[in-house]
């Protein structure tokens, strides 16, 4: 069981930038890249920096606080070399140009845990 949730028109997120959106209590950062949109948890695993405010480099984002680099496709921390990461969320742009995020059934359980 999963649902696509309509977030916002794509043009509300400038190209190569991210924006934060709150679903329930969860802050999710959505990034508008040249070829796709990607969504991850907004808070950096290092010290909770707002990833939506980071500079993107290809399909990575660099946290504005201390420069941790997060892979937007896998959620893994690419720099420094630490085995942690953030959640990723399936994300797409529908035919009306609206960004949608897929909320999986398992996600609520994960958040609750």
């Amino acid at each position, binding site marked *: 069981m999963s649902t696509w949730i309509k977030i916002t028109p794509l043009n509300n997120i400038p190209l190569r930038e991210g924006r934060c959106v709150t679903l329930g209590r969860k802050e999710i950062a959505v990034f508008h890249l040249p070829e796709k949109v990607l969504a991850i948890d907004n808070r950096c695993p290092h010290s909770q920096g707002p990833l939506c405010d980071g500079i993107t*480099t290809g399909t990575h984002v660099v946290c504005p606080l201390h420069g941790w680099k997060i892979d937007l496709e896998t959620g893994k921390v690419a720099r420094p070399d630490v085995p942690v990461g953030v959640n990723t969320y399936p994300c797409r742009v529908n035919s009306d140009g609206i960004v949608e995020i897929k909320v999986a059934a398992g996600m609520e359980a994960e958040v609750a845990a």
Partner: protein
Amino acid sequence: MARKKLKQQLIVIGNGMAGIGCLEQILRHDHNFEVTVFGDETHVNYNRILLSSVLAGEKPVDDITLNPLAWYLEHQITLRLGIRINAIDPVMRTITGDDGSVTSYDKLLIATGSKPFIPRIEGVEKDGVCAWRTLGDTQWILNRTRPGMRAVVIGGGLLGLEAARGLQVRGCDVTVVHLRDRLMERQLDSIGGRYLRTKIEALGVKVLLDKSTAAILGNGHATGVRLSCGTELPADMVIVAAGISPNADLGKQAGLQVNRGIIVNDYLETSNPDIYAVGECTEHRGVCHGLVAPLLAQGKVLAATITSNRGATFEGAIPAAKLKIMGVDVFSAGSTEEGPGIETVKYEDESQGVYKRLFLDGGRLVGAILVGDINDSSRYSEWLRTGADLTAKRRTLLFPDPIADNGDAAAMLSDSDTVCGCLGVSKGQIIEAIHEKGVCTMAQLKESTRASTGCGSCGNMCMDILRAVAPNFEEETKKVLCKCVPFPQEQIKEMIRTQRMKSVQEVLDIYGNGLGCEVCKPALSYLVDVVNCGDHDEDRSTRFINDRVHANIQNDGTFSVIPRMRGGITSPNELRKIADVADKYNVPMVKVTGSQRIDLLGVKKEDLPKVWADLGMPSGQAYAKGVRMVKTCVGSTFCRFGTQDSIATGVELERRLENLFTPHKTKMAVVGCPRNCAEATVKDIGLVGQEGSWQVVVGGAAGKSVRKADLLITVSTTEEALAAAEVFFQYYRESANYLERTYDFVERHGIEKIRRDTVYAQDAVKEALLDRLKKSKNLSQDAWLERDNPINSTQFVQIQPMEQPVIPLNPSYLRTHVSAAND
């Protein structure tokens, strides 16, 4: 005098790579020549291969000079530039120039190169049509191209594609019209041609294959071209790059044996015993060579022949081309034709754009095509040269053993292996230069052996050998900005200037990896701003968050707000507003800063525009690499020791420079007497008042580094002091590297050079600096005005989702509802 007459007159017709390359070799022999060189271009010998880099703005013209004037002087060579030789009299042994001069020779060396082949196209003589061959042609093109201009390039060979790339980089709308069914058909097969085409089209250059040009349209000036199929293409400029043909007319006129080129034997002798020829104007065993390596090989042989050391022979050369066309590496060598008995081995990866094909004949390599990955080209060149039997290696021809260490590739070469194909320098010669001549830098190696001065593609291998062998090896000190845009900042500024680039993405697409990172994007943002004096295309995605929302991000993701308080002067009214804002927005902390200002800490991003509006004060740029503040002491306004009006002067200095960006933050101070209460001598720019004069000091610091500022100049009036500060300020903006504080900048350049370039510079130089500062200043504005005109719809606003999940993600909500349902 008598001795001089004994010398033989050697005349070289042609001042290009082949002629001068040969002359360099002649000078290495024991010779008895008095040398005169005639060149019809007006430039000293330059590297013609690199004209494409000049066109594309990667190199300034001076960088492609091979032999500066000093070289000709040093070797007592008479250089006659801008003179075309019209006639040779082989009986009287004289030559006649188009200036009417007649010069006698004992030995004559023809190195006239080649000329562009101009197809018979109606209207090809029109203005706006150019064949691209010389530095002069390149400058003609550079002077005419403007972004948005439509250009048609006739010819999709090597030269045509390089022209197309140069024009595309300069913002032109480029179409390549090619007669054949694939690009670079002389070097590539149809698959290789297709890979190249895909890549080139992706860069925005249109490619039309199988099309011939019927006419150039336009009344006097070209306005378009008509193809044979009837299609008309509008064009403001037409570049003809349809190939070259040997410049052999002089040879014909002198009665030499001439076919397509001047016919030479294996010793580079022509049919006249006193006349020799070298380079693209010659034909050897039926082949006219057009690449640099064989021409320089010919020069070596001819140098031996002409200095009475006849013996070495030129046996022809395997054609090989290694180049980068619009970011695609291409290597082609040997015979790349299919035929009976020819077997081929292929590797193809479409999504990576990598294509490799080897041509084998009886177990020996006869040709190779590499597109997209040319790392193995030297291995294949070597196999082609030696004709090694590859039967045993058949399964791994395309897959070399992984190289474990960097020195390995160098270690795998034998001493006789050629490293620089252009200049014919072997690994052994490089090692000899290192040991015998103490060579330990790339620059010294180039000077000593000429290795890597041709196409430059062997540079990495030369570095590897230097690194491995030279005991005192020194890396080049040129520091590149970032691996995304691997050029020194100085060069990037030059590229932005000459290519008129206005956005970060343009620089990344054309000179970089197209992506950029958190290091180079803010740096490039600064560089496109400063080079264009503020008239650039602002892209906030390349800016650090502070510069996207004009506030300083704090460790909890909130922001600090510091309004501008010029000279540290405020008023009861401003203080009241600050207090009201602090109350209204529940600002967790209000703090007096070290810069005589007030900081509101802990403001939420979405509150920023409202906070700024309520304050009604301009941005203090406390978040930016820009003009922070001018701190002042009380000065003559109140202080009993004050000698100068530091407050008014400080406020005025801040007004003149505020809202501008600098390589790093710029902090200033003005003090009214040498007691220095506002610490001007540890600021980036300081004005120190004394009785009847001001000292302007620069490069001070009292932060991470502590440094006493250097005295720039002492002046008598306040206006002079402000002007000196402005001149230095703009000079720092233009000359420092991004993130270089004035204290590092002043140390790096030395205060004496800075004085010469600023306050002691000619008036015109100072005025130009001030003009550019003024232009930037006029286009700048208080960043906080974006509260009324945000740069995009969500600059400060938190996005509200159009819908929430049906089952909310809030776990407590979820639990409540589940338990409620269970109840």
